């Protein structure tokens, strides 16, 4: 006998059925996929991505979604954490019969997270990791060539070469991960999204707040991403993995204890204990947010350096990389001016309220 969140007593077999059927309904009602799509499953070896890989490949078979599925793992270069969890994904590749592609920060950006942390210390690690992660598929030649080179020089050179030589050069270019991908699927669950809503409210980041509850994001960018577990509680996922005896890796990233998200997580967990529905309700509130039309929102353009989507002149990944390569680890972190330690205090009396209102969206830092 097991629990579902809404005080429904069900047996194990019914739990599997209900769980799988709910995910199927979320996929169908939100039209997450089209037949024939090549879909990358973001796989870290953790509980959410393991269950995602298992359930998605099962539903793909059972309901004939017609998807070409594979596992995509990112090696951020975190010793004692990522190297172990990647072993789990390699086992998943065998267990679920899904081919695996691994992409590393070292190859793409020239920096591992361990290198980055050595340079910047133990604060703001997640900022670097999160930004670099999101651009991993979208812009393979990120760190190597300027936009001009990519768009003009390289194609011209390639015009004059035999295709066999081109293929050989492309394979050599470590940055050119030739992943043909139509969509990326991740295992973000209801708890994660509720935490993100809370984080964005606490930071005053209304641009992110308006996007973070969407079940599909990045449709106007290189690769759309979707989250079939948006309404699925973390607890259900863990129960499913436990009873189905799915193989997953369960250690916290060694750099995460210092992350701000930890506070949001504690709070959400305490709330869940008092009123389990609170998690779905927070997501609903996030979805229902409306922003006044008089508010200035950042506009989405493209990065001058690499062409990725960006609301600033340079995208965040370029800014961070530039900072790392120039030995200026604070570049792109915290407020653009002031005493440089992310401090929010103002020296002039009475200017605080005005300053907060005129601050650019998403730039309140702690």
């Amino acid at each position: 006998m097991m629990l579902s969140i809404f005080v429904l007593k069900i047996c194990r077999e019914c739990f599997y059925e209900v769980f799988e059927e709910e995910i199927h309904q979320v996929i169908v009602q939100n039209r997450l996929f089209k037949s024939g799509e090549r879909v990358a499953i973001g796989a870290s070896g953790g509980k959410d991505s393991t269950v995602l890989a298992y359930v998605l490949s099962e539903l793909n078979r059972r309901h004939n979604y017609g998807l070409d599925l594979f596992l995509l793992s990112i090696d951020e270069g975190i010793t004692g954490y990522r190297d172990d969890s990647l072993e789990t994904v390699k086992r998943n590749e065998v267990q679920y019969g899904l081919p695996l592609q691994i992409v590393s920060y070292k190859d793409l950006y020239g920096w591992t997270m361990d290198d980055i942390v050595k340079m910047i210390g133990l604060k703001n690690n997640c900022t670097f990791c999160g930004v670099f992660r999101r651009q991993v598929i979208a812009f393979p030649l990120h760190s190597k060539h300027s936009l001009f080179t990519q768009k003009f020089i390289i194609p011209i050179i390639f015009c004059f070469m035999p295709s066999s030589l081109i293929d050989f050069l492309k394979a050599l270019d470590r940055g050119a991960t030739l992943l043909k991908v139509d969509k990326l699927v991740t295992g973000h669950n209801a708890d994660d999204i509720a935490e993100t809503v809370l984080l964005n409210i606490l930071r005053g980041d209304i641009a992110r707040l308006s996007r973070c509850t969407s079940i599909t994001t990045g449709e106007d960018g290189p690769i759309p991403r979707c989250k079939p577990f948006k309404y699925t509680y973390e607890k259900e996922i863990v129960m499913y993995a436990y009873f189905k005896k799915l193989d997953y890796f369960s250690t916290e990233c060694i750099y995460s204890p210092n992350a701000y998200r930890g506070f949001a997580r504690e709070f959400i967990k305490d709330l869940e204990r008092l009123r389990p529905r609170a998690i779905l309700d927070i997501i609903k509130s996030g979805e229902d947010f409306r922003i006044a039309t008089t508010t200035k929102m950042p506009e989405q353009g493209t990065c001058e350096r690499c062409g990725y989507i960006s609301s600033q002149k340079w995208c965040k990944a370029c800014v961070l990389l530039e900072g790392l390569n120039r030995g200026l680890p604070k570049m792109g972190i915290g407020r653009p001016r002031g005493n440089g330690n992310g401090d929010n205090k103002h020296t002039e009396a009475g200017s605080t309220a005005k300053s907060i209102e005129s601050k650019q969206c998403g730039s309140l830092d702690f």
Partner: protein
Amino acid sequence: MQLTLEFGGGLELLCDSIKIHKVNINLPNESDILTMKDLLSWVRTNLIKERPEMFMKGDTVRPGVLVLVNDCDWELSGQLDTTLEDKDVIVFISTLHGG
């Protein structure tokens, strides 16, 4: 009372990296029943070798730790008031890590 305790989701790291513990627990003095509340207190004293705050908060498990008694969610059997019997299997799984 003989019980089998299982720790998962990273909690095993708090008990010398041993996932399964077969234990023998004495009933509390004035009583002839053992509740989950008694068991938790026993576990904290005898099995948790480091960072007890990752396992418990106050009298109960830390929010984010799932508890199963004989494969049944303890929320169905009364949480801390759940009574235990000989040869029961209790599983503690932490959900507090990356996915």
